[in-house]
């Protein structure tokens, strides 16, 4: 009788935690094995190091205070840019959804922000923006259109029936936003945030290279490249990935908690 239903992930609270972890570890092992295979295939320490080397180097780095300061200050910059992008993207989406005129005004602007290569405006940007803020700015510009697109879409897809209900029962602006728009936008917003967090890291670290930011992960990756320290390159890349994944997890958990608390889903 069962023909085709995509399993609902959230619907299986009884699945044992152990099995969950087991599967996750398996997945990790799978990718590590692939890495090792790749390493053995390439056999060039300059291009690719073995997972063992990379983790060894990572542990070494983790022993230094400097490492933590660097990682933390890069994180601070990129998260700031990310948050700014999320806030601005959401506000802009609200504005452009309310007014057709504002939409017409901002839409080309956002298209430009989306498509313009960083190389094109960095020269101009460097006049106003000081070097440590370039990564912030770049992450911001990366996240903004993603959030804007998703939130706008979420607003457009909000159930008109519920909006009519809110109108009849005189919810007013605040209650309509709180009770209808927010919960409707949540899934779109969440998707934008998870995607945006990754992109913010990608772009933010690249911008740290461009702006030669002191004490930055980007700077370290750049140095690793110039000095052909491949183990360092992989170790610092791993740092980027680990922080980004952890932050994403943290953010999702936070959103879930807030969502539950305020009945947003």
């Amino acid at each position, binding site marked *: 009788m069962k023909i085709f239903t995509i399993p609902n992930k959230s619907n299986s609270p009884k699945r044992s935690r152990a099995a969950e972890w087991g599967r996750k570890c398996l997945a990790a092992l799978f990718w590590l094995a692939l890495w090792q295979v790749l390493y053995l295939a390439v056999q060039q320490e300059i291009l690719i190091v073995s997972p063992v080397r990379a983790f060894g180097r990572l542990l070494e780095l983790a022993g230094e205070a400097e490492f933590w300061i660097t990682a933390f200050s890069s994180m601070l910059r990129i998260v700031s840019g990310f948050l700014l992008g999320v806030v601005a993207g959401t506000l802009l989406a609200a504005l452009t959804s309310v007014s057709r005129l504002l939409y017409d005004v901002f839409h080309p602007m956002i298209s430009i922000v989306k498509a313009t290569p960083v190389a094109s405006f960095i020269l101009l940007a460097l006049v106003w923006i000081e070097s440590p803020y370039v990564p912030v700015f770049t992450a911001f510009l990366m996240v903004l259109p993603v959030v804007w697109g998703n939130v706008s879409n979420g607003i457009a897809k909000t159930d008109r029936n519920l909006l009519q209900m809110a109108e*009849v029962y005189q919810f007013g602006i605040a209650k309509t936003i709180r009770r209808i728009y927010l919960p409707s936008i949540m899934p779109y917003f969440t998707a934008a945030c998870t995607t945006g967090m990754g992109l913010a890291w990608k772009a933010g670290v690249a911008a740290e290279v461009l702006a030669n930011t002191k004490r930055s992960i980007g700077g370290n990756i750049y140095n690793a490249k110039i000095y052909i320290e491949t183990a360092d390159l992989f170790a610092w890349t791993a740092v980027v990935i680990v922080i980004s994944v952890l932050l994403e997890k943290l953010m999702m958990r936070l959103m879930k908690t807030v969502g539950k608390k305020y009945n947003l*889903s």
Partner: protein
Amino acid sequence: MKLTIQDACKSYEGRPVLEQLCLALPGKGTVCLFGPSGCGKTTLFNCIAGLEKLDSGAILGMEGRRVAYMFQEDRLLPWINARENVEVVLRHADEKQAQKWLEAVGLGEDGDKRPSELSGGMRQRVALARALAFGGDVILLDEPFRALDPKTRLRMEALVQEHSREALKLLVTHDREEAQFLADQILYLEGPPLRIVRREFPSDRRNDA
């Protein structure tokens, strides 16, 4: 204040649903609308509630009057529970008040369930509780008792009858007995386009008034 519908016209994609409709309704009391499926009852309600704009004509006597509207579908907010769904329409959030209304529709124990955890008839009663809790000077009820068993139905009918006697209650029903029991006035409708084929004033209630 009387509610007057003057030369109301409304069409969807060229097909008229309301066409030069004129209708005068009293300021209070219960008016039952009785008409075939698709004749335009819901459209009329939407226009009265201000959710749809008339193509031409006017609806007079609605200024400053609060409208409570129980939609044909339940239109509950899926992300909050039954009690909150009632509470959300109260001017001052008040859980006890909401609970009182849930009890009135026989759902005192189901306040914590979300709409998806309620049965069809229960959802409908939450929507009814919400409309009654909002109060309002004009109360539009689109088939409020449709999916209810006879016993519950009687209780709900009584509840609606007792409620806000000073308001104008417009009520769609497909049950002739029910109309006779509840209404001060019954409008027999045909359509589309919507027209009133007969008006009836159930005598016993008229004498009361």
